[in-house]
């Protein structure tokens, strides 16, 4: 069976007044029906990776190299009608910002029905009943009435659930979710995560879930990839990453969480700031902030160390035992 997703050496540059090397040589694969959480620094390229997967980056202002295959389809070669069919049909996305996905001038029912009609060729009536069913499934209270609401009439959390309904309405093979639960309270968030887990099994779809919350990653995904400065610096099962994160950035991220910190105590932010991304990295991008950096880390790209199958760490010192610290 072909992989659900194969990204090979993806490199993305934004051209403008200043060039931004947003994605630098990213490779990633996923099997059918797998769930992957994408963690990482703000600005590390998580959203750009998802946008590339959807063919959403403006071709005029972006240079893309490498390849992306979803279910065997060469995504970067798609355009026009084929791209539209793929987008929202095969792969769909739940955005970080509801403002980007929901059109303020149409009711939410209309928007979901419209998508279903376009992709599945349903009649208006059937499409509206699918829309109603989807709103129910994401637990929108009084869904019937909400069909006729405009996005601005919904609370932030409800807008987010409408987006999820919109994304799932065409039963995609791969769902891209960009922090879809950050705007939800804990009780609704856990309901949505359990719901996504359920629908994911039912539809057999793959999920890439961008989150900043390690707890959310634990609840939703079997696997985790950690990004830093446009690269994947570590990948493994959720268990491996949580219990035995090897990359110093991953460790910093785990240490910055607030679980056991006393009120008002200074938090452990990772010192320094991420690199400018103005040039393609030729050494470890994390070295300037890394407490364990050696001079070799500043001289060449670190090797990708693979402690076990489908486990990788982009750090020169990943093989050293933790006790040696």
């Amino acid at each position, binding site marked *: 069976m072909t992989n659900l997703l194969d990204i090979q050496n993806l490199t993305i540059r934004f051209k*403008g*007044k200043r060039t*931004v090397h947003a994605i630098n040589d990213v490779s990633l694969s996923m099997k059918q029906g797998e769930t992957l959480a994408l*963690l*990482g*620094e*703000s*600005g590390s390229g998580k*959203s750009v990776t998802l946008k590339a997967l959807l063919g959403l980056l403006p071709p005029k202002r972006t240079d893309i190299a490498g390849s992306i295959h979803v279910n065997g389809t060469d995504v970067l070669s798609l355009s026009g009608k084929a791209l539209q069919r793929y987008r929202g049909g095969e792969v769909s996305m739940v955005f*970080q*910002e*509801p*403002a980007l996905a929901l059109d303020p001038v149409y009711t939410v029912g209309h928007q979901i029905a419209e998508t279903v009609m376009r992709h599945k060729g349903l009649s208006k009536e059937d499409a509206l009943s699918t829309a109603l069913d989807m709103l129910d499934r994401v*637990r929108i*209270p*009084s869904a019937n*009435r909400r069909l006729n609401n405009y996005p601005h*009439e*919904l*609370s*932030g*959390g*409800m807008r*987010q659930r409408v987006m999820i309904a919109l994304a799932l309405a065409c039963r995609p093979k791969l769902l891209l979710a960009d*922090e879809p639960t*950050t*705007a*939800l*309270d*804990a*009780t609704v*968030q*856990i*309901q949505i*995560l*359990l719901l996504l887990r359920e629908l994911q099994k039912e539809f057999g779809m793959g999920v890439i879930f961008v989150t*900043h*919350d*390690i*707890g959310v990653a*634990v*609840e939703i995904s079997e696997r985790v990839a950690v990004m830093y400065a446009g690269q994947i610096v570590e990948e493994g*099962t959720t268990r491996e990453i*949580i*219990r035995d994160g090897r990359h110093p950035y991953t460790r910093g*991220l785990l240490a*910055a*969480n*607030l*679980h056991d*910190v006393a*009120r*008002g105590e*200074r*938090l*452990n*932010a*990772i010192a320094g*700031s991420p690199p*400018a991304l103005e040039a393609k990295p030729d050494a470890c991008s994390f070295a300037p902030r890394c407490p364990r950096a050696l001079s070799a880390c500043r001289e060449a790209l670190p090797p990708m160390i693979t402690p076990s199958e489908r486990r990788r760490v982009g750090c020169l010192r990943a093989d050293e035992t933790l006790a040696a610290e």
Partner: protein
Amino acid sequence: MSATDYAPKPDTGGPAQPLLIVKDLQKHFPVRGGLFGRTQAKVQAVDGVSFEVKKGETLGIVGESGCGKSTTAKLLIGLTEKDRGEIIFDGLSLGQRLPLKDLRKGVQMVFQDSYATLNPRLTILDSVAFGTKVQGLKDPNGLARKMMDRVGLNPNRFAHRYPHELSGGQRQRVNIARALAMSPRLVVLDEAVSALDKSVEAQVLNLLNDLRAEFGLTYIFISHDLNVVRYISDRILVMYLGEVVEVAPVDSIWKSQAHPYTRSLFSAMPSMDPDNRTQEPPLAGDPPNPINPPSGCRFHTRCRFASDVCKSDAPRLDGLAQNAAHMVVCHLYDAASGHPRAGQGIPA
């Protein structure tokens, strides 16, 4: 950043005067309904909300999506017009002795949706400097660059970019820098850090703590991340369906949540253990329709402890017997309520 960069309006009411008093705030949004789309129904977004925020205090607000947190915040800064109620800022009542434009000088808000609140045609530097330019402050660009630096956005790298050229977390920091550049005394942060990764979040929380220590800033901090709310807040206020259901010092509520809704909310925090994931959501059922909220206690349709009195009578806010500062709205704690467990609280 020095004291001259941050120059909030001077205190007038003295330290004992709460910076903010909110009394019986109400907002009902009309919605289209009925045969001819006449407005008949009303969403009871905020219904009789009262609280105080002391000077230098941080009040955390939590609650279910749609319970009225953002509406409360917008009412506070006069962005949404209230139907009823009073807002008293440092002793002056809004609309009486305090004109809206004076209130806005003292209060800044950071919104939930970072994309919608930035002008796409302004560069980041212009966005951050905009407010201070309007106020006629000296060197608004210099101040804007300093603020950007403080929230971890290198001005050399970001000043000339446009909002769409930033990541979500970077945009949210622009919003924070823009609010702080105005030297407010009260900052209302609505999900201001939820788009940030944990390390940048830590950096911003450290900054908020520093500013509070240095300039006695007061915050209202709305967030779904209970760990963040616990860390930053002195007191936590819990809302359900437009009403306050519990308000308590953070240590007290963290140890033991009195209201049944609050208890479900706290037990819904994601597991940190891959071998022990959540199987059942702790709060089942749909949130009731805010157009037609349940009678009596609004939580009774989903509460495990509901009895007849909960359906008929609305409970009142009262301090707990063992800690008067820990206030709750629930018949379980009122010995005279007529609930079978009146005065006993939630069973252990």
